């Protein structure tokens, strides 16, 4: 990076609006940004903050109803807003390219990869088809795709998600652009695949000298990929600075609030609970005057913060390019060491409630292909769950962690009685429930085991009122029978999940995502269950909302001494809230133990890779990088030996390919399923290194 070089992109006082039948909606307000050659800029914010709009404005692709109201976007000295469609075309794809959130949707399903790649250089440069082909293959090799010729001849659906995203990245880089826009490029991918893509993106500017704008909601990813970061809230930038200064000394209350919402691997749910940001993101036409964050800010001062809109200003005594949009930042004293709120009391773990013993679940799939018909093997098994063993106790939170397709949701279905297991037993309070499907369970059994679902937009029936839906649960479970009593119980439940009582009459579409999840929690706890299964309850929510919902879930759990089975793919959330962790991969439990045991050696190699892949939004924490090769095998056709053998970075040899490893007991209830001897696993260094107080001081002196 050279400060004297001409900037690649300059956005100055940019205001972008959408024009709808409801009137003008300002999406982005007063946005300024400068990108220098080779620099990677991060834009971070929650959904609806306008970060993707910025990217689309730079591409000059805003649809019929969007437009730049004022300000300019200058790319290498040319004002993009004044260019004709033809001039734009010569810039798009050749000088500025874009990488998208969903790689599969971004590729044309009916054209082969070679056509889609080759047309980029063919459209922008006067070269032969052979040359275009050669370049495309070279680029596929550069983005670390094995067997590029085969990929060239494939259709998009024949590739895995990670491969598709690499193809899209290759497509973006083909004509050596000076600016690359990345809009949440890894959000749709699994964590271990994400790690590989993040590494590739990190290498791009080194290899190609491309400037990048990286848009994400994940502070950890921004930290790993970017040089400078812009924090956006409700259409405007509230703080900008270098990674180091902004992550170490966040000045804006919103930035600070974001950090307090993210569980760090150092944090513990009882000692330092998350502090959610109260309230909700204002809708664009409901923004308050003055500071947009005002109504949600703890440091809000009437008369000052709400008087007039104000500009970004340089942070006094901070790094030169650290700027903040806050009038009171000097008066706010953020104490870095204590991000959490007040400590909560630790729960005593009670008696065993749930025992899963050698539980297997196979699905039968009819193979309709001609070869199957000839060979007679018409029925194949999808081994969704293989020999699951674990126990859960009263008041305990057990997390089940794994990437998509690992069988965690299947397990939840079997537990709830929506599917019946193939072999093995599940005992709930001593009673074997594995063979009883939900229709045959008694009301008592049903109400004692309930579930919180993943998708907030799906969890409530849009046709019925909130009150009606909760009342139905109470009536069905026989909690109350009298109409008045039921109504009162619903009110109490609404109080419990901290929602206003008049939500009783509302329809789900009038609720925000977080509010819907709260209703989902109220519904699950309506019958005082002894076990609640939460299937990724916050993964679809923004961080500030997710923190509040997570805290609520745990508060209710504390009160009712409920056993919580928390299904998740996010290890940092899991570390934060669970007592015990079960790591699953391709239907197998590879490791299980307490949260501390899982996060410290000895690790299963897969756990090790998962830990390494977790983005951590703390610049002081260092990680050992482990990037897994290859794709997740299909559950239809799993490896013969250890399920992880195709991607394992510590693979021993043939034994891994051919034999299923046995469970090795490290300590009581800490089990690793691996061929590598425990002694060797114990010697592995920790993946995550959190500096202690003395190291931290040393570092600060060095800075």
């Amino acid at each position, binding site marked *: 990076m050279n400060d004297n070089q001409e900037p690649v992109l300059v956005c100055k006082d940019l205001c972008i609006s959408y024009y709808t039948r409801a009137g003008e909606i300002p999406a982005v307000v007063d946005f300024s940004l400068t990108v220098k050659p080779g620099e990677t800029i991060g834009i971070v914010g929650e959904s609806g903050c306008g970060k993707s709009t910025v990217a689309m404005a730079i*591409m000059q*692709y805003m649809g*019929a109803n969007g437009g730049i109201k004022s300000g300019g976007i200058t790319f290498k000295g040319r004002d993009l807003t004044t260019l004709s*469609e033809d001039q734009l*075309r*010569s*810039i*798009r*794809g*050749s000088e500025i*390219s*874009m990488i*998208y959130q*969903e790689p599969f*949707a*971004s*590729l*044309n*399903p*009916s*054209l082969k990869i070679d056509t889609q790649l080759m*047309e*980029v250089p063919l*459209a*922008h440069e006067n070269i032969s088809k052979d040359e275009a082909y050669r370049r495309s293959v070279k680029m596929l090799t550069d983005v670390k795709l094995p067997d590029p010729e085969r990929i060239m001849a494939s*259709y998009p*659906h*024949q590739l895995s998600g990670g491969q598709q995203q690499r193809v*899209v990245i290759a*497509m973006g880089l083909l004509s050596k652009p000076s600016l690359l826009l990345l809009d949440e490029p890894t959000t749709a991918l699994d964590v271990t695949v994400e790690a590989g893509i993040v590494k590739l993106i990190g290498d791009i500017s080194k290899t190609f000298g491309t400037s990048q704008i990286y848009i994400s909601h994940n502070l950890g990813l921004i930290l790993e990929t970017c040089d400078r970061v812009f924090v956006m809230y409700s259409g405007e930038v509230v703080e900008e600075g270098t990674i180091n200064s902004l992550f170490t000394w966040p000045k804006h209350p919103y930035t600070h609030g974001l950090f307090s919402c993210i569980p760090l691997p150092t944090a513990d749910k009882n000692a330092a609970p998350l502090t959610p940001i109260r309230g909700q993101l204002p809708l664009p036409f409901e923004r308050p005057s003055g500071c947009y964050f005002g109504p949600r800010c703890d440091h809000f001062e009437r008369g000052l913060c709400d008087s007039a809109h104000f500009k970004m200003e340089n942070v006094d005594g901070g790094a030169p390019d650290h700027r903040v949009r806050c009038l009171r930042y000097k008066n706010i004293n953020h104490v870095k060491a204590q991000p959490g709120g007040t400590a909560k009391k630790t729960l005593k773990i009670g008696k065993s409630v749930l025992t899963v013993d050698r539980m297997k679940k196979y699905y039968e799939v009819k193979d*309709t*292909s*001609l070869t199957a*018909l000839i060979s007679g093997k018409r029925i194949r098994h999808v081994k969704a769950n293989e020999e699951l063993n674990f126990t859960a106790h009263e008041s305990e939170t057990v997390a089940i962690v794994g990437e998509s397709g690992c069988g965690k949701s299947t397990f939840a279905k079997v537990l709830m009685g929506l599917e019946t297991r193939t072999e093995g037993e599940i005992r709930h309070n001593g009673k074997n429930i594995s063979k009883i499907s939900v229709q045959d369970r008694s009301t008592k059994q049903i109400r004692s085991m309930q579930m919180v679902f993943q998708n907030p937009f799906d969890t409530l029936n849009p046709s019925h009122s909130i009150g009606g839906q909760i009342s139905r649960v109470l009536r069905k479970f026989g909690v109350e029978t009298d109409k008045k009593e039921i109504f009162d119980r619903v009110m109490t439940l609404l109080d419990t999940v901290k929602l206003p009582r008049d939500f009783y009459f509302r329809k789900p579409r009038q609720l925000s995502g977080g509010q819907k999840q709260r209703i989902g929690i109220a519904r699950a706890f309506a019958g005082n269950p002894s076990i609640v299964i939460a299937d990724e309850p916050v993964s679809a929510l923004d961080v500030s909302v997710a923190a509040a919902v997570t805290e609520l879930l745990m508060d209710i759990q504390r009160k009712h001494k409920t056993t919580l089975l928390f299904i998740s793919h996010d290890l940092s959330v899991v570390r934060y809230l669970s007592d015990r962790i079960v790591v699953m991969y391709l239907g197998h439990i590879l490791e299980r133990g307490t949260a501390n045991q899982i996060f410290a050696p000895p690790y299963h190699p897969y756990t090790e890779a998962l830990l390494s892949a977790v983005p951590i939004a703390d610049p002081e924490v260092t990680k050992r990088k482990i990037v897994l090769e290859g794709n997740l095998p299909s559950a239809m056709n799993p490896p013969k030996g250890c399920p992880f053998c195709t991607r394992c970075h510590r693979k021993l040899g043939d034994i891994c390919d051919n034999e299923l490893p046995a469970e090795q007991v490290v300590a009581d209830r800490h089990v690793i399923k691996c061929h590598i001897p425990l002694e060797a696993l114990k010697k592995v260094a920790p993946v995550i290194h959190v500096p202690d107080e003395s190291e931290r001081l040393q570092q600060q002196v060095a800075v």
Partner: protein
Amino acid sequence: MILLLLKRIGFMLFTMVVVSIILFLLLETGLTGDPATRVLGNFASDEQKEMWRDQHGYNQPTVVRYAKWLGNFATGNLGTSIRYKGPVKEVLLPRLWNTAVLGFWTFAIMIPLSLILGVLSGMKEGSILDRTISVFGILTTSVPEFASAVFFSALFVFGLKWLPGTSSMAGGFEFKQLILPALVLVVYDFGYVARMTRASMAEVMTSQYIRTAVLKGLPYKQVILKHALRNALIAPFTVIMLQINWLLSGVIVVEFFFAYKGFGALLLEASLNNDIALLEACAMVAVVVAVGSQTIADIGYTFLNPRIRFT
């Protein structure tokens, strides 16, 4: 792929057998009224009916009769038409040819017209052209064929006196006589196909891969021709193939109205005159054509869509 083909053809045969059983039960057995009465009329005496039954083998067990009937059908012996006093085959084939000619011209106009209009309006959703085409499409599909036949006759035959009012082709084939029947069919159907094409095109145009193509810096023409059309025309292909099925209904009205000597008019005539053998043959032909075109549509869809073709 081959398996799918076999499956579709298998289903086609299955459907035809089931349909033949239903037809047989409906028309040839006492289920919905005595066939003898149906043929000979209400005033025939019992002896006459009994004689007719004996003559035509109606006193044999149902299963035997069905087997014979099916066997005859399979070998091309379609029976004798009561109304035309001759073998059904000889009556049917020229009529089928006439309808094929009418159908060909209808499709030759309707397909390009509706595809072009559909694609144009789908390209820019909400534009004036789009809204005009869309409302015009609703308007034309709202007028039943017999009504538009009346309107067009009033205009072109009685008003402007450009075209003949009947299409019986009494003095040999005359292209002029084909115009009105084809026009009525085209007008009624193009709106539907155009709307389907528009919906498909509009969906493709808002897809992310079109955004990718635009942001790659491809010329607009290339985005439309190479990226959009390819995906947008998969759905209309199926729709068009299924229109053959609809055409078989449409021709009945149009041929009846314009006295065109085609298959549809024949079928109607057969049913109004209780000409059982003729009705059966016509119905079977209709089903063969309909199921056949559906099979082609299914196979074509699979072939056009790489996501199904390679899995």
